[in-house]
């Protein structure tokens, strides 16, 4: 490298990439929502809409070889970490071309080749897995990190304390990312949580920060610092990203609520407004400070929507999952 890099161009590229990734998640999930609402999507579908800046900021600084563990709300994490949209759609559509061959579905999207150790239907299920992956990395003396994405509801599961403790004791290369959207299903998490959840990390001597989870750059920055610590062998970090879930807990929410509600429409509107929504907000910033034009953004949107169209078509046209496979993949080389 003989010349200094053009920092502005690099920044612009980074910002546009972040924007595109967030928009991809948004448009993909809007499509999923549409299909789900029309009754075309089996099982439980939990959307990430409104939280895109968190997952994208986190994964923007990870390599394919780094690991993440995710949640029941995992589409955004999957796409942020580089998972293939077509393969994800095919999975949600229950097709054999799905990333999990149709065996996992929305709550279990995983791409191990991309370090995505799986969305998880058990609240808190990814926590110990992430700690274990970090233990594996440490033992293998590999230059990787493991990132655990989990919700504010999950943060009340005891495995968190257990795994925080072990990660601190052994200085494991793991980053704990609490995506605090304020809600656990239909429960306001604050009502069932005492104290600040970041203090649970501090109690084991771990650095913990809270960032605006709807500000993709703030999340990215916090992650960069945490990763440096991890790669330097200084151990785990804890990041809380404050954000909000704009859609229901799951797409069939209304059927479950039966007329009751747990939040006001005004609250949702606040978070959907241009100054809060992570994508609208970042679009403004791109226009005002990022050197992007509206045409740039429109072009991205078109590209993204095309990808979504293609993915939907791919999923639609793929063959159904293959039942025989169940018995082949339960074990390696052994029938169940």
């Amino acid at each position, binding site marked *: 490298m003989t010349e200094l890099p053009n920092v502005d161009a690099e920044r612009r590229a980074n910002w546009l990439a972040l924007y595109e990734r967030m928009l991809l998640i948004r448009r993909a999930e809007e499509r999923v929502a549409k299909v789900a609402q029309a009754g075309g999507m089996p099982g439980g579908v939990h959307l990430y809409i409104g939280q895109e800046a968190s997952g994208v900021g986190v994964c923007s600084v990870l390599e394919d070889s780094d690991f993440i563990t995710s949640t029941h709300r995992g589409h955004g994490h999957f796409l942020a970490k580089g998972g293939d949209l077509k393969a994800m759609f095919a999975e949600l559509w*229950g097709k054999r071309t799905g990333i999990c061959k149709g065996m*996992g*579905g929305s*709550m279990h999207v995983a791409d191990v080749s991309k370090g995505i150790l799986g969305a998880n239907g058990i609240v808190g299920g990814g926590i110990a897995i992430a700690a274990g992956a970090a233990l594996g990395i440490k033992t293998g003396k590999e230059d990787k990190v493991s990132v655990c994405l989990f919700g504010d509801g*999950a943060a009340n599961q005891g495995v968190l304390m257990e795994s925080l403790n072990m990660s601190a004791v052994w200085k494991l290369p793991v980053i704990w990312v609490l995506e605090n959207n304020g809600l656990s299903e239909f429960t306001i998490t604050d009502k069932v949580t005492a104290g600040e959840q970041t203090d649970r990390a501090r109690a084991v001597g771990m650095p913990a920060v809270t960032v605006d989870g709807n500000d993709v750059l703030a999340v990215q920055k916090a992650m960069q610092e945490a990763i440096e610590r991890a790669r330097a062998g200084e151990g785990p970090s804890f990041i809380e990203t404050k954000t909000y879930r704009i859609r229901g807990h799951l797409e069939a929410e209304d059927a*479950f*609520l039966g007329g009751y509600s747990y939040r006001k429409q005004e609250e949702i509107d606040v978070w959907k407004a241009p100054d809060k929504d992570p994508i609208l907000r970042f679009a403004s910033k791109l226009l005002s400070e990022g050197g992007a034009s509206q045409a740039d953004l429109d072009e991205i949107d078109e590209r993204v929507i095309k990808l979504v169209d293609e993915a939907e078509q791919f999923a639609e046209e793929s063959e159904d*999952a293959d039942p025989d496979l169940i018995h082949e993949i*339960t074990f390696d080389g052994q029938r169940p």
Partner: protein
Amino acid sequence: MAKQRYIQAINQVFLDEMERDKNIILFGEDVELAIFGDTREVYKTFGPERVYNTPICENSLTGMAVGAAAAGRRVILHLMFGNFVYTGMDAIAHQMAKLRMMTGGQMNLPITVICGYGGGRSLAGQHSDTPFPVLMNIGGVNVVTPATPADAKGLLTTAIRGNNPTFFMEASGRGGDSGEVPEGEYLVPFGKAAVHKEGKDVTICAIGTMVRPALRVAKQLEDEGISAEVIDPRTLVPLDEDGIAASVRKTGRLVVVDESKDRCSAASHIAAVMADKCFDKLKAPIKRVTVPNVSMPYAGVAEMAIFPTPEKIYAAVKSITGELAESNA
């Protein structure tokens, strides 16, 4: 009698029993807004001192149920999905099931744990299990699974009023089924199987969610000249071994239908007991229609391929009654 949905019947029992006995408390995740609908209005009616909307922490919830019962309360714990039985297993296996015995019988543990179970709705591996086997095996907890709204009312009332820990396994998480439910006080005793349909050629012992498909198959068989008796244990612990055995002795043939995974299933156990107790009257191998020993797949086609469908029940019955259809024809 009035028609009620399964979940409605359960909901009504909660309201009635908590009104009747002020000592009852209820807690669990999202019970305030009632994720399954079965705890609807309970929080509003009885308030935050008897109803606790909890954080997500199944390990403590099951242990807390034990503590609250030991402290003199009558406890209802809503555990949402049957899978979370595994998440809260430690205190279930080690405290709830054992504490009475380990203390020489010093305490009653009037605890009702309620959760939905089973597959067939593309909820995939972690939300489709039927944890009968572990609950039946640990010893020290009752396990009941009503197939109809009436039995839901009767068994739940018995569970709540009883002094022993009981897992009330909802056979219908969606609450869609409806049926006649006796009005007023109605208790169904534990350990008494229900004969849903009498028959003389083969006994179909169907558990919980499997009763409906079994009845459908029995009807079809009837048309083919095979008379199937459909018996529903209703409670797996205690198990009406004598009632099932009486049916098997009469028909000489047994098919057990169970949504558990096959190995060590409730079906296996019932088959084993009958292979011991009714051997002299058995005319054919005992068949099990269960779920294979795999994680429930997501895709509908894959799920149905391993689900205990009417087709599979029919095939199992036919495999041991083949000659009958001909001779009865």
